[in-house]
């Protein structure tokens, strides 16, 4: 692998290979009901309790488009700076499977609802643009459960008919970490928009990953393999790494790569062939005659445009310009809407610089350790803001603040109260400090003499002693000033 962080290359003997990756992300549309029926989409319900006659494909049942899902798809398209197609067509993708009740999936083939767009990635060495090929709406299938019975497969149709957005990227990605950044950015945009919760554990976000390799410097794409249905960013990265190396090994060995669909085995960390191109399904796509072409007006799109919130890229720009944050800090703080909201709430009444450091540093570390999301933060934005003000006005030192912060993690209390109750207020009375310092010098006469004779390093020792005697409460700045005079 290349040492250069900006370039992901696979090295073999005299050859260097570049990896080309394109993603088909399946994002579940945030919606109360399914794409073509009124059944609930709530996660975790008892099997087969959220299945309408339409979802189970009973004879004579007909799909009726859920307008809300259409709006969600268009909003996502706007978020991806993409072309919204005023006319799109639902097609049937025909194949047989036990968890596909209709015997076809309603999808969009030739005319998707959203066309070309782009996503900007913030990589350590700068920004990278990833092209979006299209976004289309489609139905999810049900779930086949193979491990409940030794002989039978069970089918749960709760997911059957749930709306998905398939977001197809151009083959613009070049490394596992770009894929990581891309999926995170996509998820962030959709969370800002409220169009997909991006919850990968619940299967709300999955991806088919297309991987090919080519010798560095060549222009033509290699033969690609599609790794189906990968459901975590980590697995995507692992699968790409494995698959790219597998392909390079084949080429180095003088063999060719078969275009095929592969599966990623997460336990063995390897990809396995699922079906070759020859065995590929003929889906016999054709326009669904039960549904008319979907037509949306300019007015409809314009109204949705008004509902689009400030998205991460714009917010980042604002944070940098208005709050003088570094691009790094801004990127972290806008990564999701909850974080940026928290940040903006904290800085309403407190210092931006301190707030940024405390959120990115102490708070994130604590949340990480406790495995909590920012909306679950034990410390409210208001109280963190108060803590920062206590530091800013000299009531407590930064060090004491960390102690107070620990207490706040246990109990989300007004930090002022904690400071009072625990007697943590900073000692800033010069007279009291002078008395303290006099005592410390008196107790360490020898060292004071050494200091005066030129051993200036001992100054730190005296500061430490004063802080120790004061129980950490002495105002460090004043201690410094007074000590210098006294010594």
């Amino acid at each position: 692998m290349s040492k250069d962080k900006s370039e992901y290359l696979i090295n073999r003997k005299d050859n260097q290979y570049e990896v080309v990756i394109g993603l088909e992300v399946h994002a579940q549309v945030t919606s109360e009901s399914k794409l073509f029926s009124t059944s609930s989409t709530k996660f975790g319900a008892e099997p087969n309790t959220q299945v309408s006659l339409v979802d189970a494909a009973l004879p004579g049942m007909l799909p009726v488009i859920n307008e809300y899902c259409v709006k969600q798809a268009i909003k996502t398209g706007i978020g991806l700076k993409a072309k919204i197609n005023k006319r799109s067509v639902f097609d049937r993708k025909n194949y047989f499977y036990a968890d596909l009740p209709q015997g076809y999936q309603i999808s969009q083939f030739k005319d998707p609802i959203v066309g070309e767009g782009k996503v900007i990635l913030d990589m350590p060495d700068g920004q990278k643009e990833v092209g979006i090929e299209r976004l289309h709406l489609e139905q999810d299938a049900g779930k086949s459960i193979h491990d409940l019975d030794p002989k039978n497969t069970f089918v749960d149709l709760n997911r059957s008919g749930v709306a998905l957005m398939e977001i197809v990227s151009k083959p613009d990605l070049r490394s596992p970490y770009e894929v990581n950044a891309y999926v995170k950015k996509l998820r962030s945009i959709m969370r800002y928009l409220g169009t997909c919760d991006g919850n990968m554990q619940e299967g709300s976000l999955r991806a088919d990953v297309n991987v090919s390799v080519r010798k560095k410097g060549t222009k033509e794409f290699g033969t690609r393999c599609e790794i189906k249905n990968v459901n975590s960013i980590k697995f995507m990265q692992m699968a790409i790494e494995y698959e790219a190396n597998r392909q390079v090994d084949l080429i180095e060995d003088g063999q060719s790569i078969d275009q095929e669909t592969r599966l990623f085995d997460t336990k063995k960390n390897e990809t396995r062939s699922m079906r070759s191109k020859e065995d590929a399904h003929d889906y016999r796509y054709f326009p669904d005659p039960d549904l008319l072409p979907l037509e949306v007006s300019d007015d409809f799109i314009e109204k949705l445009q008004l509902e689009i919130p400030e998205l991460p890229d714009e917010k980042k720009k604002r944070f940098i310009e208005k709050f003088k944050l570094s691009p790094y800090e801004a990127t972290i703080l806008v990564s999701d809407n909850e974080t940026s909201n928290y940040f903006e709430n904290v800085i309403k009444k407190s210092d931006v610089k301190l707030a940024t450091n405390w959120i990115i540093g102490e708070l994130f570390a604590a949340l990480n350790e406790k495995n909590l999301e920012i909306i679950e933060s034990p410390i409210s934005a208001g109280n963190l803001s108060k803590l920062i003000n206590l530091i800013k006005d000299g009531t407590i030192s930064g060090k004491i603040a960390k102690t107070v912060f620990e207490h706040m993690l246990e109990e989300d209390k007004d930090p002022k109260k904690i400071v009072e109750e625990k007697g943590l207020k900073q000692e800033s009375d010069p007279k009291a400090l002078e008395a303290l310092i006099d005592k410390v010098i008196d107790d360490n006469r020898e060292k004071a003499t050494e200091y005066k004779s030129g051993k200036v390093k001992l100054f730190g020792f005296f500061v430490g002693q004063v802080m120790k005697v004061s129980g950490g409460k002495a105002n460090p700045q004043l201690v410094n000033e007074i000590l210098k005079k006294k010594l």
Partner: protein
Amino acid sequence: MSEITKQSLSELIKNIKDKKLSSTEVTKAFVERSEKSKKLNAYVTEDFSAAIDKAKKFDENPNLDLKLPGIPMAVKDLFCTKNVKTTAGSKMLNNFIPTYESTVTQNIWNEGAILLGKLNCDEFAMGSSNETSFFGNVQNPIDKDLVPGGSSGGSSSAVAAQLTPITIGTDTGGSIRQPASFTGTVGLKPTYGSCSRYGIVAFASSLDQAGPMAQNVKDCALLNEVISSYDEKDSTSIDFKRNNYSKELTNNIKGKKIGIPKEYRIDGMPKEIEDLWKKGIEYVKDCGTEILDISLPHTNYALPTYYIVAPAEASSNLARYDGVKYGFRADGENLIDMYEKTRSEGFGAEVQRRIMIGTYVLSSGYYDAYYLKAQKVRKLIKNDFDEAYKKVDAILTPSTPSSAFKIGEKTNDPVSMYLNDIFTVPVNLAGLPGISIPAGHDAKGYPLGLQIIGKAFDEQNLLNIAYAMEEKINFKNKITDWWIK
């Protein structure tokens, strides 16, 4: 008062409203005649005792303001009926009892009608003679061993034999009009989008349309008024202003322009059909209309187009019958084996033939040459009609190229069977309304029908022309009750 089952729908309604007849009396009369007519094999499922119970209940507190007050009625077994077995004429659904009601039948019950039972039809409505039904042939009451047409063969037989005063069928390529023509009855295929397809077992979604079948035009108009409604549950349902077709019915069609399409004069058409058409032209002329020769240049391509589009949609629509969720299932070694056995045993030969044709024309590499091409031709066929309707108000053609044929006569010759629909399929492809009315008899004494094709949503005008012609034709159906000992 004449015998109850011989009365038209309008007469029965009048007698019930005038309290001369009760719903129970009427229902019992049709049940009795149906019981005596099992030889016709018109019913797949009889619901007679429930029907009589419902009639008694109706009579206890009769709502005479309804459009079909206490009228018993059997329906084609393609309409899903709540808690009553719905088979679509197939082994595949022989055990299927819906938990829901189709919109069209719900509309009928909402107006006070009572379900007598479910009528035989070609399997999944695929056929022109009712011979593809899993439940066997239906006899045409006109003569022994004569097909009643199809796919709504049970419906046409039941109406002609007066086992039900009226009925509903579905028409994908002629499945209402051709059986009506074969049995001397009236059958209307409304404009695509008039009657909801919700709860109707689908054959070809872009062509399927439910419609009324009756003994006369007025009854047909009334039933159309009941079943035609906008339905949000069907995305292809159209919200247009529907008339009170029976109330607004008039025989005054003076000044209307009737088109005679030269392309319907096909090679080898029997002289009887040619003569019937000529007579028909004289009848409409007598009604004060103007006759114009028109051209529908793409008519020749309608049948091949239909036999690409309809099987393509059917191949996909019937994919849901896989043995997994409901209906027939054959045991198999594994999922694929179960699929193959279920679908090989559950579907009859004609359905399998159409699924294969449909699968083929949608296959990659053939899609453009067949399906896409057929869609383009379909548009041209529609354009033909649009052009014609710039000059005329309606079009007059024969309903079928022949009268009813013998059972078994065409079963081994699918192409000759498909030719039955040559005059009716263009109407489905263009989404237009069409009606078949009985207009005469051939040399064998079998009924022949004429078809009137209207503009989209112009059912009223269509019915008016049919009504005026009916008066002039004064057709009498020759029903001898040969099947009753």
